[in-house]
């Protein structure tokens, strides 16, 4: 695999990482809630996908839609029953609650499926590839990348063109004004967490088609999402997308250089960005942020 192929692979992976980050950033931007169970939801979606494909005759695209709908319902329910009770300036209670939830989900998955490595078999598409200019790249990664770009564009349209999307942004800026306009803040929040979890779930399911996973993959996914948000700068869709691409490329290149230490390179890149932000170079390099 040449370096150019590695970079292309990293970019296609990065689209998914961007979606992970987008889910986390939506929840934080709108509700000021950091969902520590974010990574577990991502993994849960993969397990749900595996199960649906194994026990039902549903075709893959339908499974993706079903998983997204289930994830939306789960996010809605979590916000409505638990997290809405913990709103406020102190982020600690919501973090502890979602931390507890992540432990429960992780260990329930171990109980149900065992701790073995799983993967999703999607048939002949797995091995198809296209070649051009001497490079070959899998059809599946390209397809997944296209889907993630479409999702990013859809979220952008949702946030700028629809009432609920504008309500999301208004809730992020000033929830009191939002309520004076007749919106129910809590229902907006429910929908926002539903959307955040659904986006991450779709990304998790797509990632599961590319690489394997275990019940313990959630932590890694959460840290990726977090790094994407910090690298990309909070509060910008474009930042999430670019942050995801950057992290994807760094990981795949790192993996190519040192086969055992891919995630470590992601972390290192994250800290380099953090240091640059703190130094005086920050303002120069902080393009694309608000």
């Amino acid at each position, binding site marked *: 695999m040449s370096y150019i192929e590695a970079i292309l692979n990293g970019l296609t992976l990065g689209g998914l990482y961007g979606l992970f980050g987008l889910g986390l950033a939506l929840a934080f931007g709108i509700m000021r809630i950091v969902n*520590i169970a974010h990574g577990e939801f991502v993994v849960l979606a993969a397990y749900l996908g595996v199960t649906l494909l194994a026990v039902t005759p549903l075709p893959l695209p339908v499974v993706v839609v079903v998983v997204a709908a289930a994830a939306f319902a789960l996010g809605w329910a979590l916000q409505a029953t638990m997290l809405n009770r913990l709103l406020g300036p102190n982020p600690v209670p919501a973090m*502890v609650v979602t*931390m507890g939830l992540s*432990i429960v989900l992780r260990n329930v998955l171990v109980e149900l499926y065992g701790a073995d490595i799983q993967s999703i078999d999607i048939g002949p598409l797995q091995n198809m590839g296209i070649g051009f200019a001497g490079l070959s790249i899998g059809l599946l990664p390209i397809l997944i990348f296209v889907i993630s770009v479409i999702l990013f564009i859809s979220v952008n349209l949702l946030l700028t063109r629809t009432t609920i999307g504008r309500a999301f942004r208004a809730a992020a800026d000033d929830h009191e004004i939002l309520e004076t306009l007749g919106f129910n803040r809590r229902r907006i929040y429910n929908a926002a967490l539903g959307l955040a979890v659904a986006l991450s779930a779709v990304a998790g399911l797509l990632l599961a088609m590319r690489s394997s996973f275990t019940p313990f993959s959630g932590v890694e996914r959460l840290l990726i999402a977090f790094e994407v948000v910090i690298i990309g700068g909070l509060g910008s869709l474009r930042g999430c997308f670019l942050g995801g691409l950057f992290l994807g490329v760094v990981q795949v290149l790192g993996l190519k250089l040192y086969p055992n230490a891919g995630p470590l390179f992601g972390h290192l890149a994250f800290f380099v960005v953090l240091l640059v932000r703190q130094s005086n170079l920050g303002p120069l390099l902080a393009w694309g942020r608000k």
Partner: protein
Amino acid sequence: MSTLLRSSLTLPALGLAAIAAALILLPIDRRLAMEVLLVLAMAQGWNLLCGYTGLLSFGHHAFVGLGAYVLFVTVNTTGLSPAWSILAAALVALVVGLAMWALLRKLRGPYFSIGIWVLADSLRLLFAQWEWVGSSRGIVLNPMSIDAASFADTVFYLALGLALVTVFGVFALLRSRTGLALMAIRDNEAGAASVGIAVARNQLAAFLISAVVCAAAGAIYYLSVLYVDPSGAFDIDWQIRVLFIVIVGGLGSIEGPIIGIVIYFGLRELFRDAGDLFLIFQGLTAFLVPLIMPGGIWGLIQSRTGWQLFPTRRVAQ
């Protein structure tokens, strides 16, 4: 002018002395007692940071693993006795803590929590790659460095010493001027800053203390098992355990972690044969406590009775 209740110092001192005497004299399982004492020290250290300065850390397992590795490397390469090597572990934790602070100092709230988690994960990956420390295979302690006959007692007394020093140290600190500043930060960070308390400096002090305590506890724990590997020493489970204990017992008090520790180890012994069920239960409790009992068990007791076993509250005169 405000003052502390001096008269009530005897009760906590006598209580701790009685517990220490009971642990030494009674025919208990010293292995379990050692683990309880070490986790108690970690919980008190973590609580000093999170309960008092509002910095919720999800990455203190970094210091547990770091302390363990420094002890093993120091003993195996320099021949220093294990007990003295704990000081080396504490010193390295201090230096690494300072370096981490330099990276994280601009991050607050959730960013700090997950930022330090990423650091802990980086350390785990780094030690798993680092050939000099045995990469993912880990290190075995040089058997020549310990005296097999007295070893079990040695680690028990080290753990007891660390736990007592930590509980008394945190207690003394909270009764001092610094403690007053920490409690002011706990109650209202912006308000504390507005009356001239150096919030960041106090947060750094609490962070370094918690780092050193967790490193020393990690060093003693892995000393007792004679073997350290990256996936165990840098396991997030250390952090989860401490989080559970402090949250259930009550954040921001000395009594809280003590209650939490009794509950944690009590439940663990009860669920001993149930495997993953205990972990699920642990998560479920951490999940429910902030919803139904925000101050933890001690917070509930205190709001009902006003008791304080370790008097750190000041009374206006």
